[in-house]
């Protein structure tokens, strides 16, 4: 078990190193997510009454669309120079590769969220320090990474690979998007825990279901 963790970490660290050196994914996704925030603010208006209704939605549209872009990059970079084949030649279980890539995707999305969310809160004049929002973000991004890593590996081998990932990914993560928006609203409004508990439970259930299911079927996606 300990060995599996080491192997997962090695694959994860490979992605981190690549990102430190190229800065290909995080910066571009970050700029894109910020743009989504700004465009949606223009589209919906920014009066106080409007903000209450639209703010949670705007945040999650930005994080979801940014997430899709980041997820599609995680396997697209492996496709260049046949790196995916190299990865497959590693003497490790396919599930280890899945968890390694998942950890990488999750970290990229989290890094983006850590920058985007405070900017979002400031732009909408909301309190900046919201630890409960961090919990919602971690749960939702885990679900995104669980489903997205699987579909990203699948989409790179189809012809219309750029559009294939969002088409596959978005309908499946509907429960996460709904729950994340519903759990964010009480946090922004300063309502008690009770209002968000159900939605947190749904996200936890979703995360567990998809982490298990994707671990089991991932090998069928990457086999040659």
């Amino acid at each position, binding site marked *: 078990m300990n060995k599996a963790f080491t192997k997962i970490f090695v694959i994860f660290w490979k992605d981190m190193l690549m990102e430190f050196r190229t800065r290909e994914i995080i910066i571009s996704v970050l700029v894109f997510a910020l743009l989504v925030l700004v465009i949606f603010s223009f589209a919906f208006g920014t009066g106080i009454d409007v903000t209450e209704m639209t703010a949670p939605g705007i945040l999650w549209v930005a994080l979801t669309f940014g997430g899709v872009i980041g997820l599609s990059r995680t396997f697209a970079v492996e496709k260049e120079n046949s790196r995916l084949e190299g990865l497959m030649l590693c003497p490790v279980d396919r599930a280890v590769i899945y968890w390694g890539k998942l950890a990488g995707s999750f970290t990229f999305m989290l890094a983006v969220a850590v920058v985007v969310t405070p900017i979002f809160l400031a732009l909408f004049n909301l309190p900046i320090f919201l630890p409960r929002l961090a919990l919602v973000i971690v749960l939702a991004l885990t679900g995104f990474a669980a489903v997205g890593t699987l579909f990203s590996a*699948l989409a790179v081998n189809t012809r*219309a690979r750029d559009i294939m990932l969002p088409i596959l990914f978005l309908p499946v993560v*509907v429960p996460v998007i709904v729950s994340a928006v519903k759990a964010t609203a009480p946090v922004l409004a300063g309502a008690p825990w009770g209002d968000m508990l159900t939605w947190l439970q749904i996200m936890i259930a979703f995360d567990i279901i998809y982490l298990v299911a994707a671990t089991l079927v991932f090998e069928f996606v990457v086999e040659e």
Partner: protein
Amino acid sequence: MNGNHALRNGILWGLGFALMIAALYMVFVYVPTEKHTGIIQRIFYFHVPVAWVSFLAFFVTFIGSILYLWKRQEKWDAVACASAEVGVVFTTLVLITGPIWAKPVWGIWWTWDARLTTSLVLWLIYVAYLLVRSLATEPEKGARYGAVIGIVGFIDVPVVFLTVNLWRTQHPTTIIFEGGLTTPMLMTLMVCIAAFTVLYVLLVIRSAGLKTMEAEIRRLRIMKAE
């Protein structure tokens, strides 16, 4: 195709045809018009069976996908894919017949109710399934990817339903189970469900047979090229 298959298909066609005629007769002539909503309620006898078949179809895709990944026999993939195709067509019909009923009764075409939203999300997932299959670089990869989506997509159904149900709900749920239907109505519904189920089985057999033949032709072409 051997004699057994021909006989089975003949029986199914005959049964399907008889049931469909009976269903049409019962829906348009036999069953009384519902008191409150009027003539539009008759669409219910198509809407419910079609919805039932679309869920059945995606369940069969789910099972077929598991069996394909497990046994690696092309027939399971053919069944899974054929069933998904029929399922998408039937879900489209659900999404069309629903609003036609909803507009006069609820006064709106669409509402983000649990059943409606789940059907819509299902439709989107399985359209993606068909897209991946047609855009895969090789048929064998398409079959594997399809199977993965057939499994991962189907386990999403209860989660989507639960989530959207907590979100908001408006669909008439309990009419069928609380005895709100009179005997002629229930009988009509049953005949319609039987008719559409047989239609589904026929379509899947046809489509899966076609896919098996296509695979056979591909194999022969490769053999000839070699």
